[in-house]
């Protein structure tokens, strides 16, 4: 019997692609088309001359709004520079230590004792835009202040996502099955793309938005949370949703650990620059190998998108699969046997079972409850 199952692309390694780097505010682009760049190269410089930034210090320091002033490390009206200590809560005997550094050069303009929010008046300062990737400048848009860099990335595809493209340094919070509540979200995660575990709670998502976290990668999410982000949609969720944070769900709904394949890869990119495209359901991990410039210089970028949509394929022994039905949802392994005889499930449904060897055990599931993964 020809047993067809879904085939899903999860990890597409070493793909040449364009990464767009955008300059904030007015400034100039410092590179030209055809120029080779490495991550630390400054490719644009701008001056941010005005504006304010607000920080919820009560939340960041985990104290009541009325107590915040006690923990402020700089007086009101004084200047502070990016990275300098703004607030510190030692945590006492039972609490955990909370450190808040200034996200920008500024002056402590106003503090609201009822909300615990500090308003920082931004000082004029230079913003350097780093290349962040190894690559070759493919195009420069001096009007929109965008530099397109041809680079090599490993693309990781999730099941669902939300949010416009965002970038940041990846921070793995714990193990792949951890439950992420708001206590695991702290101010020092702002601008980061964080890797959660098996489930991110609603309160943690809200905290992440408050602290300016750029994105979250999670194995599972509750359907009500996801629908809140995607305008109530699940089936056609890949659209234009935007809730102030990028989200990538790698497995499905409920508590499901991030798949071993994706988690191991993300762990190897901890503290490295990544680009999360929630609405596209993917995260791109730029190569950290300087030699990748040589490889991409020989590759022509294809104008057509490769088809990474769900396909079907015949299940065979030796294939690597992930389980998409209960009770082994999210487990991965290799197919080691396919039954020749039919099994009648407790539901009365007749199926062919397959045996899968995971990292820790052998499991048997109906063949229709797996996907071949790449």
């Amino acid at each position, binding site marked *: 019997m020809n047993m*067809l*199952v*879904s085939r899903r692309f999860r990890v597409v390694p070493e793909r040449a692609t364009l990464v767009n780097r955008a300059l904030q505010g007015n400034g100039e682009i410092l590179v030209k088309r055809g120029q080779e760049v490495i991550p630390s190269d400054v490719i644009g410089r701008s001056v941010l001359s005005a504006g304010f930034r607000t920080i919820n210090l009560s939340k960041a320091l985990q104290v009541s709004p009325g107590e915040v002033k006690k923990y402020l490390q700089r007086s009101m009206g004084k200047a502070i520079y990016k990275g300098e200590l703004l607030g510190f809560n030692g945590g006492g005997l039972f609490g955990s230590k909370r450190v808040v550094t200034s996200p920008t050069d500024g002056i402590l303009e106003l503090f609201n004792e009822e909300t615990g929010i500090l308003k920082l008046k931004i000082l004029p300062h230079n913003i350097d835009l780093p290349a962040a990737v190894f690559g070759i400048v493919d195009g420069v848009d001096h009007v929109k202040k965008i530099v397109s860099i041809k680079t090599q990335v490993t693309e990781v595809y999730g*099941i*669902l996502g939300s949010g416009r493209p965002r970038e940041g340094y990846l921070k793995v919070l714990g193990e792949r099955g951890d439950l992420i509540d708001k206590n695991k979200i702290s101010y020092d995660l702002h601008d980061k793309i964080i890797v959660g575990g098996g489930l991110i709670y609603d309160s943690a998502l809200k905290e992440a938005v408050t602290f300016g976290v750029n994105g979250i990668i999670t194995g599972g999410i*509750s*359907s*009500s949370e*996801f*629908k809140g982000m995607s305008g*109530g*949609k*699940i*089936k056609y969720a890949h659209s234009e949703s935007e809730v102030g944070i990028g989200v990538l769900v790698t497995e*499905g*709904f*409920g508590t499901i650990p991030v798949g071993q394949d994706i988690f191991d890869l993300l762990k190897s990119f901890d503290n490295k620059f990544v680009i999360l495209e929630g609405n596209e359901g993917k995260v791109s991990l730029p190569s950290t190998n300087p030699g990748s410039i040589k490889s991409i210089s020989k590759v022509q970028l294809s104008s057509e998108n490769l088809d990474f*949509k*769900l*396909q*079907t*394929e015949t299940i065979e022994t030796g294939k690597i699969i992930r389980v*998409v*039905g*209960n*009770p082994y*949802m999210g487990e991965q392994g290799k197919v080691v046997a396919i039954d020749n005889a039919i099994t009648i*499930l*407790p*539901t*009365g*449904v*007749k*199926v062919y079972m397959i045996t899968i060897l995971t990292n820790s055990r052998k499991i048997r*599931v*109906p063949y*229709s*409850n797996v996907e071949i993964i790449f």
Partner: protein
Amino acid sequence: MPKLSGVFDIFENLESIPYEDIARWLKPAPQQEVLENYLANRIIYPQVTPSTLIEQEYDLAILREALRRNPIFYKINQKKIFIPSDFLQITPDIKKLASVFIDAYSPSGIVVFILSTGTGDKVLGSLVTVFSSASDTLHFELEGQNYKLKSGSLIVLPCPKEHCHVSFKSTNSKIFGKNELLFEIPGGALGLIIDGRLK
């Protein structure tokens, strides 16, 4: 090759079904989050076969509400309900499936059930609804066999032949406004479903 499909692929609006609507078919009702996550996973993985009886009950409850919102399988003018053979992926029990369609569409009169397969249609049997009063007895004779039924129930009688002759008699309950009636119905693997539940 294209994407693999499943029963729940047919329906466009599953995510908009409220928890309460699905939960009312389940005893005991699962926690809201559990059921909502289950439904969401069925939307993204429609090809999955339910492995346990609990999952099968969840699937049938979702199917009831999905059908209720999409009356595409009930051709009222033809007095026919078409059951796609794909639905047997949830349960091979055709009686169970038929009851799901009855719950969803609340059909009345005499309605024929048809199994739609890729190769053609097959008559499964028929439904007849009785307008019953409480504490009444319904007398049926089906192909020479006598049945005495209490009003207020839904039961299935065997009728494997292509056509079956039925005789009905009751004191207060009625079919097509009559206490006594002789009629013929298409039969099949399902047989004759008598819906005598109080209306």
